[in-house]
């Protein structure tokens, strides 16, 4: 075989005492799709940031096409033909596709000539790779899948031969993801090299030619995809065998604990985000809300949690119809037995610069057990925090550490332990395993099922279809603010995928 497209030789990078990458060796063959998997904090993103010039390696060498290169900045990377599609798009929202693509390569002080050349070049790339996008469409008006396509176009326009994609399917519907994979296949045919970073093992199995596994900053294995399996990869990532399926008995639902009737929520621009939504959640069941991000699930969750105002509808908690004042008061809702694990743990569920024990009481700071008179009872708070750290295996086991210093999975455990240990009747959970590593996902899923089995009502909102399907006893699908369908636990992915994409189902039986 010819020279590998990219070769990394002995790359190491430390942040203070943290060894993010240690002696990494990697060869990516030209014209292949190469997957990189690993838990959160395993060093995947650091490695790619070194390759793309955001960080400099402490030691080691990068070779592109067999020649050693020095990459000091993203511009150097682009000059070497390396392009990157970030997890969070780097697009100017109110620019057109064309303007975004030519940004940074305008070709002179006056735009006219550069624009014409860019338009022609864009047309050529679109034709060659089957990446049609309206060049004059404004980014913010495009669906997420197309925005991602613009990111890919941008990289190709700069002459990228090697394309790095960081968690590209997180924001896509299953059909959009399929489309992306077809594009990647096409790129491969045309001789481009693709590096795909993901934590979804199914995607690795579906489209990659080879796969590398990282664990704790080290490259533990590089395998041919055809010669490996999902359980093997999971085991390599975590360092022990992992249960990929959730073991649970069938549900035995009791009385209705949470009932939502005709709930309507508008966002700050006045756009209806939740449109006349009604459903019940019973004791002892997990109801999953599936949907592509941005279809109103977040707003639904926040409205139930008391954070966002609902303009119509009612919420019945534990048999009590909530009045307006209670509905807008998260503290009162907590007292009535509603616990809320928010979608965005960094900005809502936690105060990152606080010590761990301070976050372990967030929202419950008025609970008498944490107070002595007007003062905080620090001994009680810390003892309580230590108890939760032990019970939920939160690492490191230091309740005085700043919360920002915990890994994503452990931060999520801090939030979950706080909400679950209050023994609520109703638990509403948003994206419980977003950015959480495989080992912690298994733990969190088991705790959620345990809550259900203890007779709690659990409402689960997640954009991870696998998570919804493996945990839920009933599945509601949201599209454009409405619940467009309800399915049992056995619903197939295709069936849910169609509903999520807004394909109206004629439900003859109902």
């Amino acid at each position, binding site marked *: 075989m010819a020279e590998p497209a990219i070769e990394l030789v002995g790359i190491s990078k*430390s*942040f*203070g005492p943290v060894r993010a990458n240690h002696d990494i060796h990697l060869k990516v063959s030209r014209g292949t799709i190469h997957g990189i998997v690993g838990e959160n904090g395993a060093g995947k993103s650091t490695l790619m940031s070194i390759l793309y010039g955001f960080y400099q390696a402490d030691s080691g060498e990068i070779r592109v096409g067999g020649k050693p290169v020095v990459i000091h900045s993203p511009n150097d990377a682009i000059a070497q033909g390396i392009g990157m599609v970030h997890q969070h798009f780097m697009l100017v929202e109110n620019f057109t596709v064309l303007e975004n693509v030519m940004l940074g390569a305008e070709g002179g002080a006056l735009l006219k000539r550069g624009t014409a050349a860019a338009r022609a070049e864009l047309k050529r790339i679109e034709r060659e790779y089957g990446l049609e996008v309206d060049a004059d469409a404004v980014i913010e008006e495009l669906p997420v899948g197309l925005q991602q396509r613009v990111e890919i176009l941008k990289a190709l326009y700069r002459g990228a031969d090697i394309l790095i994609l960081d968690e590209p399917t997180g924001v896509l519907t299953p059909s959009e993801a399929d489309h992306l994979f077809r594009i990647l296949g096409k790129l491969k045919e045309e001789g481009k090299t693709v590096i795909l970073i993901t934590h979804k093992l199914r995607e690795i199995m579906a489209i990659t030619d080879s796969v590398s596994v990282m664990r704790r900053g080290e490259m533990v294995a590089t395998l041919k995809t055809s010669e490996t399996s999902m359980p093997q990869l999971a085991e390599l990532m975590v360092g022990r065998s992992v249960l990929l399926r959730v073991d649970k008995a069938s549900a035995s639902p009791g009385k209705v604990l949470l009932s939502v009737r005709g709930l309507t929520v508008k966002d700050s621009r006045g756009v209806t985000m939740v449109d006349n939504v009604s459903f019940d959640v019973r004791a002892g069941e997990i109801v999953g809300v599936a949907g592509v991000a941005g279809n109103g699930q977040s707003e639904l969750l926040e409205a139930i949690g008391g954070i966002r105002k609902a303009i119509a509808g009612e919420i019945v908690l534990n048999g009590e119809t909530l009045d307006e004042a209670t509905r807008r008061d998260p503290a009162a809702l907590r007292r009535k037995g509603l616990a809320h694990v928010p979608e*965005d743990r960094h900005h809502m569920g936690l105060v990152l610069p606080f010590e761990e024990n*301070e976050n372990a009481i967030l929202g419950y700071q008025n609970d008498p057990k944490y107070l002595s008179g007007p003062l905080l009872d620090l001994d009680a708070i810390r003892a309580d925090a230590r108890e939760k750290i032990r019970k939920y295996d939160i690492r490191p086991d230091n309740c005085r550490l700043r919360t920002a210093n915990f890994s994503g999975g452990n931060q999520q455990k801090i939030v979950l332990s706080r909400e679950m240990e209050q023994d609520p009747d109703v638990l509403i959970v948003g994206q419980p395993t977003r950015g959480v590593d495989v080992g912690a996902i298994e733990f969190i899923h088991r705790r959620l099922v345990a809550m259900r089995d203890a007779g709690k009502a659990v409402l689960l909102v997640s954009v991870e279809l696998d998570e919804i399907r493996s945990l839920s006893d009933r599945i509601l699908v949201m599209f454009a603010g409405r619940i467009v369908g309800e399915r049992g636990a056995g619903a197939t992915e295709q069936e849910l995928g169609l509903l999520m994409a807004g394909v109206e189902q004629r439900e003859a039986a109902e």
Partner: protein
Amino acid sequence: MSAPYVKLPAWADYGLLPLINVVVALLISGLVVLFIGQNPLEAVQYMVEGALGSGEGIAFTLYYATNFIFTGLAVAVAFHGGLFNIGGEGQVYLGGLGVAAAALTLDHYTPWYVTMLFAVAASFAFGAAWALIPGWLQARRGSHIVITTIMFNFIAAALMVYLLVNVIKQPGTMSPQTRLFAEGGQLPKLGALMSLVGLDIGAAPFNVAFLIALVASFLVWVLIWRTRFGYELRTMGTSATAAVYAGIRYERMVVVTMLLSGGLAGMMALNPVMGDLQKLQVGFPAGAGFVGIATALMGRSHPAGIVVASILFGILYQGGAELAFWMPDITREMIILIQGLVILFAGALEHMFRPALTRLLGAGGQSSKSPSMTQSA
């Protein structure tokens, strides 16, 4: 994936870094002194000796520091809640009205310590009342507190001139000031305390208000780190969305925080009005409300840090006055320039040397920002 979060060791964060900032400010000041043809070393000598070389100098330094502690605490309390109260100057001014009201009413009838209790309460109440309107406007109408508090400084100045000229001026005199307080309205000097360590305070107005400032510092520390209110305050100041999630009522918190902040600023008036002038006169705050912003920034919004920073600014004030006296070429404006440089380096450019220092100490590539300081209103 989050980058590792590396922090400087505490001694570097709270000791070395501020020291480097001050030294750089003084070096640049030295260049300016050199530029106008004076000897910077001589200037430094006059400053240090003037501020710390005698019992009287030290007492003056501490007198000024007392002012800055109060206004620094005022800024810090608001800052922990993510509010930038730059209306200290006006709140001090109104606090003076409270002090004068208590002293003028009681000074013939009660001993100083009784008058003092009323004066503390009145100064707090008047300062708080002056901060209430900006606080309320921020909470209910979203009017930015930076704009409203600075506007209220002008209103306070105009109001006080009006009152002192037309309402509470001592009849039969020509200057806009009240009558002198009798002995029952004067805070005693701390000469006895200083003589314990063999120092003579001379004519310096170093008084009991300094002790009140230290008590206030301790109480503010308790408030911020040991009470539920402080917990909610810090949550609000660090993450507004987390505060909503935690059921913290923003409007109520903003109003209460501004009352506390304004009250602390108002208490500063005890020091000059009751401890030094023994009367209320036009312009007595003399910019101390603004210096409080600098001491709060430099002291990292921590009461202990504010006390240290206030003493440093006390040295700059007292030493600066001495310097202007002994080296006439160095004008009053030059002194303000030097103070401004210290504020610039210790406050506004606080993080300038941090990345280099972090690298030097081998603490890693990622600099961590102080949580309280990165949150401006």
